[in-house]
């Protein structure tokens, strides 16, 4: 399969935690915890929502990394799982409002936990189906077929007029979670932060796992793995499903943040955006997904306020990073700090 990953993605995780990494993580976490207070202090409340979006996209990009970075599966259809996550949450919550069961037998719910679990399950099932069919191919064909499946899902959801069609699906409010008011952006931000930290820990564990070590071999040398007696397809499929589940979780959170499931989350643009974030941050790295999401969403926020042609700025930044570093921002930081981070 097409190999976009830089050398040995799991390397940094295998080395275990080094002090500079721990310090960096602790400082970053402290900063993220302090963000709502800082935003309040400077009177820029929108920063809190921006923070939530960065965390949500970081989850989606880290999930994409499992397929693309570790599995070598260049999926151009991950918007499908992102959007399915968002739509499942919005649909269940609307059915709870309407008092009618979904498909006539699945009761609606406004519970955040149930909604997110349903989002992950649905995205996982979709990833299993799309993955099982797409993994019969490889390379460019895999990119094209995942793109095609992604667009199929997009047109499917935009044709459901009962669920808003082209206009997307509004939610009357955010999901319920132990009496916490999730409409409050600070509350919601901390919810996202908690889930992100837990997700980051799982992601880190995943990178150090036996499965990831074997998957690394499958990506780099399928012939070698076959000679060892391992059929590569099942590992690729499981990686693809895990990736879909994580992306679905991010989509479900995004619906709660926006209180809206947008057809845009399903569009191939979104697949491209997630991929750009990953490439910018660093394919196959631990911190890359977060850095990529952070830089692109902040750029969008800053330059989008000045000009609607902000993607031009993004394009230039992306060009500079891709041309000058091997492995995105993570590689750049590593070089600037002399490999200490």
């Amino acid at each position, binding site marked *: 399969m097409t190999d976009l990953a830089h*050398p*040995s993605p799991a*390397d940094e995780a*295998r080395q*275990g935690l080094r002090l500079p990494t721990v310090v960096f993580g602790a400082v970053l976490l402290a900063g993220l915890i302090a963000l709502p207070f800082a935003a309040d202090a400077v009177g820029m409340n929108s920063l809190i929502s921006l923070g939530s979006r960065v965390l949500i996209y970081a989850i989606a990009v880290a999930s994409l990394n499992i397929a693309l970075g570790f599995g070598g599966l260049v999926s151009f259809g991950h918007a499908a799982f992102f959007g399915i996550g968002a739509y499942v949450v919005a649909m269940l919550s609307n059915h709870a409002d309407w008092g009618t069961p979904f498909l006539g037998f699945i009761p609606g719910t406004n519970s955040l936990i149930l909604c997110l679990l349903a989002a992950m399950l649905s995205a996982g099932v979709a990833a299993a189906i799309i993955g099982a069919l797409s993994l019969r191919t490889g390379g460019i064909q895999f990119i094209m077929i995942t793109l095609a499946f992604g667009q199929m899902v997009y047109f499917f959801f935009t044709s459901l007029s009962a669920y808003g069609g082209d206009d997307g699906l509004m939610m009357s409010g955010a999901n319920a979670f132990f009496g916490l008011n999730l409409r409050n952006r600070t509350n919601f931000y901390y919810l996202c932060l908690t889930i992100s930290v837990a997700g980051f820990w*799982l992601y880190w*564990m*995943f990178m*150090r*796992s*036996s*499965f*990831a*070590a*074997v998957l*690394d*071999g499958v990506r*780099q*040398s399928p*012939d*070698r*793995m*076959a*000679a*060892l*007696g*391992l*059929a*590569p397809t099942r*590992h690729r499929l*499981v990686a693809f499903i*895990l990736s879909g589940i994580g992306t679905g979780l991010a989509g479900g959170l995004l619906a709660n943040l926006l209180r809206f499931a947008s057809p845009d989350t399903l569009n191939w643009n979104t697949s491209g955006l997630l991929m750009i974030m990953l490439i910018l941050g660093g394919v196959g790295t631990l911190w890359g997904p977060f850095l990529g999401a952070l830089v692109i969403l902040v750029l969008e926020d800053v330059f989008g306020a000045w000009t609607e042609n902000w993607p031009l700025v993004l394009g230039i930044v992306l060009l500079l990073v891709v041309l000058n570093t091997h492995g995105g921002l993570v590689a750049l930081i590593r070089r600037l700090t002399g490999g200490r981070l």
Partner: protein
Amino acid sequence: MAGDAILTVRGLVKRFAGLLATDNVDLDLRAGEIHALIGPNGAGKSTLIAQICGTLRPDAGSVRLRGESIDAMDAAARAARGIGRTFQIVRLIDDATVTQNLLVALHVRNGRIWQIFDGPGSRADLSREAAERLAAARLDGIAKARVADLSHGYRKQLELVIARAMKPAVLLLDEPMAGLGQAESTEMIRTLSALRAEVPMLLVEHDMDAVFNLADRISVLVYGRVIATGTVAEIRDNPEVRRAYLGEEDI
């Protein structure tokens, strides 16, 4: 010395667009032996290996491992069943270290392939075994080197260490001497000779010194057909072999 047939090939046929690449080949690999497969370039040695490994489907014939047919299995399933191999062009995980390459193999061998959230600490037994195997093969000095940075000789040795670690029932070696220097060749011959008691080997090799040094039996493949099988002395004295080989190698 040589015992029962572990691997039996019967009536194997493979045609490429009318060309008979494998012509009704019978072959036995017995316990405790090194069976060399020699023949001029284009004789169909690699094609035959590929059919035994399962990367190429034969048009007819069967391959049995310990009496069991493995014809329906793909390459991965055959490898899992005990058909070990090394490649003519070394296949390793290039961007991983020597240790990591061996570790991945040990993971597969022990079925530790689906653990999604286990840490490296829980696999200390495998790490220890990897270190021991590298030390035994005198590769411990390069344990942390990236495989892509290694010399050709080291890569060949590592591939053999990995193949051995899988504890295969048979081992197919596709030109293990190719590209090795004099000292490396001598080392490889010594390694393979010592390995004879552990696993029977089918050895495809052009280096006749190595073949005569190592082989218990030799099969000669010409135009996809086995024209003779026998001990080193029998093959040396076989007039048909001499005719087919004259000018190709000095036998």
